[in-house]
């Protein structure tokens, strides 16, 4: 009983962190970077001045990390819902299924910023230096917790 509550609660917390973290605690370049980049762009424009083609070359494009953040919102939200279901549903086989589903989501959490969508090119940008490692760590923890749940409920 106690184990179910702990596992479910941890999954909910992890899911919320994965979903909301890239927008708040360990933000991607997204909303904050739009301001930063437009500021640095205007600085650049002052330095390089009046180049029309240059302006076109420097026009803001959608960053890869923005897509990663959106994907993680979905993956994290899904993990949090799985955590809630883990608390509500009492059947051991169902909990085993929830464990497998959350493990698969954990793998996706790791793959979005590393392989599937990626983050920005510069290693010193926030999404590369903070968001990506944070998401990988949260993904690994989700995998470990889900793995523990799978092993526990498989034995029953």
């Amino acid at each position, binding site marked *: 009983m106690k184990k179910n509550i702990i596992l479910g609660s941890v999954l909910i917390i992890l899911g919320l962190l994965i979903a909301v973290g890239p927008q708040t605690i360990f933000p991607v370049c997204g909303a904050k970077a739009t301001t930063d980049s437009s500021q640095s762009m205007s600085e650049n424009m002052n330095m390089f001045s009046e180049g029309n083609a240059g302006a076109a070359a420097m026009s803001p494009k959608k960053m890869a990390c923005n897509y990663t953040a959106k994907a993680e919102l979905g993956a994290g939200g899904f993990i949090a819902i799985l955590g809630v279901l883990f608390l509500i549903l009492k059947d051991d086989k169902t909990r085993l299924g929830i464990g497998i589903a959350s493990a698969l989501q954990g793998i996706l959490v790791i793959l979005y910023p590393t392989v599937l969508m990626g983050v920005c090119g510069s290693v010193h940008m926030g999404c590369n230096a*903070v968001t990506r490692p944070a998401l990988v760590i949260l993904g690994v923890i989700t995998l470990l917790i889900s793995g523990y749940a799978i092993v526990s409920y498989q034995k029953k």
Partner: protein
Amino acid sequence: MRERKITIWNLAVMNLRKKTCQTIATLAVITIFAASVFGGGILFLSLENGLNSVKERLGADIILVPEDTEEEMKAILLQGNTSYFYMSKDMIDKVQKIEGIDEITYQYFFASAGSACCDMPVEIIGFEPDTDFVIQPWIQEKLKEKIADDSVVVGGDIQVSNGHSIRIYNQEYEVAAKMDKTGTGMDQTVFVNMNTLKHMRQAATKQGFRFLSGEEEDLDKQISAVMIRVSDKQNISRIAMEIKQKTKNVEVMISEKIVSSVSDSLSFIATVVKYVLFVLIAMVLAALSVIYILQMGQRKKEIALLRMMGMSKSKIGRMLVTEAMLQGILGAALGIMIASVFVFPFNVYIGDMIGQPYVQPGSLTTLLYILGTIVLVTGASLISVSFSVAQIYKKETYQTMREGE
């Protein structure tokens, strides 16, 4: 139930398992200690590596930059900031005849516009291969021949997504080599020869960019910095003074002073880390000693019973030492794991936050440091338990059994 042979090791393991709360509490203290020692140590080693890297790679003894751009130059060298400032190329002629100058070269700074999606602008440094003594020695570690026209050498932090070229001002340039990470501004720099730099500027000009250093024909008349190597290091100050007298609107930077500014910051951080670790070790030794003595107080009867069952004092002592050793090793492993989760994946962020050259130690050093942490933490645990073990030898079984009645 599975039968177990009664050995010191098995007894120690069973004791730790049965006394879950006590074990967890002791482990928590040891884990925090190990995490602090390991995390603090890696942080310090990384800063020390960064300082050594700066010392090795500055190359020039004296650097001349335009007036009021000293801080910008430091930011380029140490933090990889993008910046550009220019002065007349005549500066070289003015200073190169000064006695004691061994080598002299110049560099031209230029920044990419960050045209590729999601890339920050990077510093592009143009150098003259025939006279350069600052960059080429390091490039030669990776690239044996001279850097060709229209190819670039990139710093350790520049990501080459397709593996062979990078895009600057909408033109592809072949990446001839990628340098090792140095923790300095070089990591975020693209190095090119002056011909490539001219091609880059032409490409940018065609796209409508205009440059602070003037039009295309002005490129040969402008430079960003003059790098000087002095034949006798004793003469650096004299030559710097002479340059100041012979030139106007120029900042004369002495490399030793740049290094010492980094070194001063590092020694401050080192002192803080050293004292914090010293206090921490003392606190943990005291806390663990108290914990073990308190635990011993609760286990008086258990120990007396073991003595009555025929277990010698030395065996009981060895059992307690084994328990402490296991807790020490386990706590050290947990602490190292927790610290590793922060110091390794977030190393770029930590380096950026500290604002000093930051190079993580290599795998061998890290491995040695892991072993060192385990030995230190386990040693602290063993020293702490020794006071409790000493009590066993002092008291007789009868006395122990009757205590507290």
